[in-house]
Every structure is written in structure tokens, then in C-alpha cells.
């Protein structure tokens, strides 16, 4: 007479292990891609902020080269689109404040005829620093 005895402990253990491995990997992949999507979202917004400040710097340049070239400090904080000395200390850009926007100037020529700017919009993503960088060069004669 054939007797059905059910599953053995080993069988159940193997099955549960395989199943949990599958679930854990699925959840890991999903949360990873979710985090990437979140970074992507912030990157789109950060790019907009970077372009906005790049426009602003270009206007400053076109308005008056002398005034523009008189900013001989190296680091500026452009969170509020005004010349604020020193790099930003707070992530106050955006609603709610999440980004910061720094400008690094390097001046060359005497009198100044070329200014290189590096705009960095940065934010913290789960404690990890992320940034979008825009570099441009401004010449007196253009």
C-alpha cells in the first residue's frame, strides 16, 4: 500500500529558501530602481536650476562686463540669484529647500578678458552628495 507522508523538513526548507531568495532579490531590485528614479527626478529639477543660474550669469556678463569682472572672489553662493560671497552653507534652494547652487569663478588676463565659471547644483540623496555641473567660458570680446 502506498502511503502519502507529506513533505520532509529538507524539502520544505529548500522551497522556503528558494522562495525567499527570489522575493528578496525582487524587492532589492525594485527599491534600487526606485532610488534611481528618485535621483533622476531630482536631477531634472537640478538641471533646470543650473540652467536658470547659467542664464543669470550670462545676463550679468551682458549687462556690464566691468561689474561682472569686478567679482574677483572665487566662490559664490547663487541660491537666491545674487552675488553672495562664499559657498552655500545650506540646502535652501527649491520648495522645500533641497538643493544648493554654487558658482566658482576663475579670472584670467589683466585687465580681465576671460572668465571661466563652474556652476554646481548639489543635493543630498540619502546622505550621498549628488550634483549637476555646468561649465562656461565668458570672453570680453564676443
Amino acid at each position, binding site marked *: 500500500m502506498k502511503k502519502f507522508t*507529506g513533505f520532509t523538513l529538507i524539502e520544505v526548507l529548500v522551497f522556503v529558501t528558494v522562495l525567499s531568495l527570489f522575493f528578496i532579490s525582487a524587492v532589492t531590485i525594485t527599491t534600487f530602481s*526606485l532610488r534611481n528614479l528618485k535621483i533622476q527626478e531630482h536631477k531634472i529639477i537640478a538641471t533646470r536650476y543650473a540652467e536658470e543660474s547659467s542664464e543669470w550669469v550670462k545676463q550679468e556678463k551682458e549687462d556690464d562686463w566691468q561689474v561682472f569682472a569686478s567679482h574677483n572672489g572665487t566662490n559664490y553662493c547663487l541660491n537666491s540669484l545674487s552675488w553672495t560671497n562664499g559657498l552655500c552653507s545650506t540646502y535652501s534652494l527649491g520648495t522645500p529647500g533641497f538643493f544648493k547652487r554654487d558658482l566658482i569663478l576663475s579670472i584670467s588676463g589683466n585687465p580681465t578678458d576671460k572668465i571661466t565659471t563652474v556652476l554646481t547644483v548639489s543635493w543630498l540623496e540619502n546622505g550621498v552628495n549628488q550634483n549637476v555641473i555646468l561649465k562656461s567660458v565668458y570672453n570680453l570680446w564676443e
Partner: protein
Amino acid sequence: MGIVYKKSFTLIETIVVIAVIGLILPVIFSIFFVLLQQQTKIYRLNTVKKEGDFVISLMESTIKNRAVNIYNSAVLNDANIVCKGETPGDSYNNPYFLDDNNKFFSYKLNGTKIASDSANSVDLTSIYTKVSGFSISCTRNRIYSTPSVLVSFTIQYNTTSTRPEDTASLFYQTKIKLRNY
């Protein structure tokens, strides 16, 4: 021989299994839901940015390269010229631009879309977005400087929902100098 009972799950076993499934399924579905929501948000943000970038670059290139003078209406009359810079901070809202073919063009808000208005009106943004706070003005500080045009607007995804997960909004602002003034 007594009665042969068929082996089966006890009530406790069944309850435990259902409880475990009941714990795991909501977690999995909520993760997928958030994932889907995030994808929608990125899609919306992308649409908004694409349209905003298009409008701002179009306005910038047309106003910068084609505008030769600024008027308060689409009538070619010297009395209608504005932003002459005769007084400091001379400015005018919603101006009309004259191009090098003596044709007028302007940009205005048509409902919730930005429209370019020359011979006929053309919407520059789609029904998927709505524009608010659109402002265009020219300023000129001195008579010997070229006027500049200030443009700003907020573009957001066209949705009735106000939840932050569903909304996507970007602010655009630029200042354009007339190159051929």
C-alpha cells in the same frame, strides 16, 4: 482496522499561512505602486521641462535675433515705440516686437498656453501642460543702451490633483538683449 483519516492542514497552519501571505502581498504591491507613481512623476516632469525649454529657447532666439524694435501695439507708427530709455528704468509690459521684414510678433498667454502671435496665433505649449504667471516686459535704462526683455513663467503638468506626487512644476525666467536693435 479503524477509520483512515486523510491527512490535512490544521486550522492553525492555515491561519499562519494566510497571515504570512497577508503581510507579504501588501508590501510587494505598495513597492510596485510607489515605483509606478515615481515613473509617472518623472514622465510629467520631463514633459514639463521639454515644453518649457522649447518655449524659452524659441522666445530667446526670435527676440534676440529678429526683433529690431519694440512697440505697444501692432501698428507701425513711431508714436507707438516703447522702451526708449528716456527715463531711467523705462519699461513696458506685453510689448510687440517688430522684425526686419516690418512684421510684428508677440508672445502672450492664451488661456493656460503660451502662444506666439504674428500673422496668426500659434500655441507653443500642449494641452498636457498649463502655464501660469506669464510675464513679458521690456526695460531700458539709458538711451544709449540696448533694451532687454524679461520673460518669466511657471509651467506645470495639467492635472486637477494637488498631491505632490502628481504635480510637476518648473519656473522659467530669462532676460534677453536685442541684438539687432
